[in-house]
């Protein structure tokens, strides 16, 4: 286990934030446009959260936290309505998965799958809370939300997250892998 925090300079953190911010913005745009037409399993997949998990796994807890905040905010800005907890949820997912990747898990695809499943469940719970406020207590039907919203979105996100994993890892390998420990 490695309990050491990632030694990364603020300058590097800032540069990485810009690159990952652009990438997450691009994914959010793609998610809210392309997948509003193509809906795997009848739902719009979440591409941003799987990308945040990749960043967290390979770029460690600080970048995972920042990527979570950025990704949640961008996803809400482009696709959310009303009350949305995404910045907090994505941030928590990002930092927890990053810490687990350096303590319990490994930096590989399976860790990403575990992290993404965990994150999607957390995100789903947040969606239930958001739906509760949007629909109101009288019209709130948990079984309906579960079958029509959460399950399709979960599987769609996991499925579409696979190419996102490889693309995000490709970006990380090209731009940041050799400078990972910089600072």
């Amino acid at each position, binding site marked *: 286990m490695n*309990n050491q*925090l990632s030694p990364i300079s603020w300058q590097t953190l800032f540069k990485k934030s810009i690159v990952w911010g652009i990438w997450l*913005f691009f994914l959010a*745009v793609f998610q809210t446009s*392309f997948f509003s037409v*193509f809906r795997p399993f009848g739902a719009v997949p979440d591409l941003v959260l799987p990308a945040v998990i990749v960043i967290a796994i390979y770029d460690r807890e600080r970048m995972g936290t920042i990527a*979570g905040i950025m990704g949640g905010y961008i996803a809400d800005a482009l696709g959310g309505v009303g009350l949305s907890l*995404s910045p907090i949820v994505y941030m928590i997912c990002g930092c927890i998965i990053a810490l687990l990747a350096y303590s319990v898990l490994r930096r590989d695809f399976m860790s990403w799958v575990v992290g993404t499943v965990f994150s999607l469940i957390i995100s789903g719970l947040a969606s239930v809370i958001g739906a509760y406020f949007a629909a109101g207590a009288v019209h709130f039907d948990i079984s309906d939300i579960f079958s029509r919203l959460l399950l399709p979105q979960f599987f769609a996100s996991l499925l579409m997250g696979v190419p996102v994993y490889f693309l995000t890892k490709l970006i990380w390998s090209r731009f940041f892998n050799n400078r990972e420990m910089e600072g």
Partner: protein
Amino acid sequence: MSKFFKSRFFIAALLCAIVLVTVPSVLSVMGLGNYVRSALGTAATPFRYAFTEVAEGIDGFVSYFREFDAINAENRILKDKIAELESRLEAAEATEEENRWLYGYLGLKREHIDYEFEAARVIGRESGNYMTIFTLNRGSMHDIEPNMPVVTEKGIVGYVSEVGANWCKVVTILETASSVGAFVERSGELGLVEGIYELKDDGICQMSYLPPDADIKVGDVILSSGIGSLYPRGLVIGTVTELIPDEFSRTLVASLKSAADLTDLRSVMIIKSFNAYTVSEEDAANE
């Protein structure tokens, strides 16, 4: 792990996240705009437009295959409908033709209320290229008997020569075995219409035994006389096309074009009964 959650970085990040959750939510509830969200949305618009266009293009292409079975099934249904409509159209055309045909007979029926008709279809033709013997789809089951006259709305076709259970054969007036007592409609000149072997292929028969000075000319309409004949009086036989004097018998022979078109005969009427024409003494004296 707990070290990270106690770090200033995490606390700052958490505060930042809380601000990013609450501020937009509060602004949204207050109905105020959020400049950052607005800027992100503006920047995203051209990309969204491009991605949506691509997605819709792909969706249109994919939907062709996705909906192929449905389109195929629809195509089959439409083909069936077209076939059904074509069938109905054919039936309607047949009905229209039958109506025209029956309308023609209606005039005949009005003129001769004593006629009892039996409609029949031509189901067979004999005698080489030019058919002068027909088989009809009516027989003894329909009370058809030999020697019953067969007509169309235009004129005489012939007579029933042979009867089966559900069929009968008709010898036309063009056949050499046929002879019809006739008269000229305009002048009343009497004669006998017979089939001539050499002319029947042209649809021509002859009216013979006319006196050399008979009042007859080309274009005159010849009707059945009803005297000693299978045919009722007044049915059209044909029109005079040529007049030929016979030097040996010193009579006049008229060539007739049959009124009924025997080359394209499909439907006819069999006259099952009619009031036979009888010659009174006065008529006989006149004739």
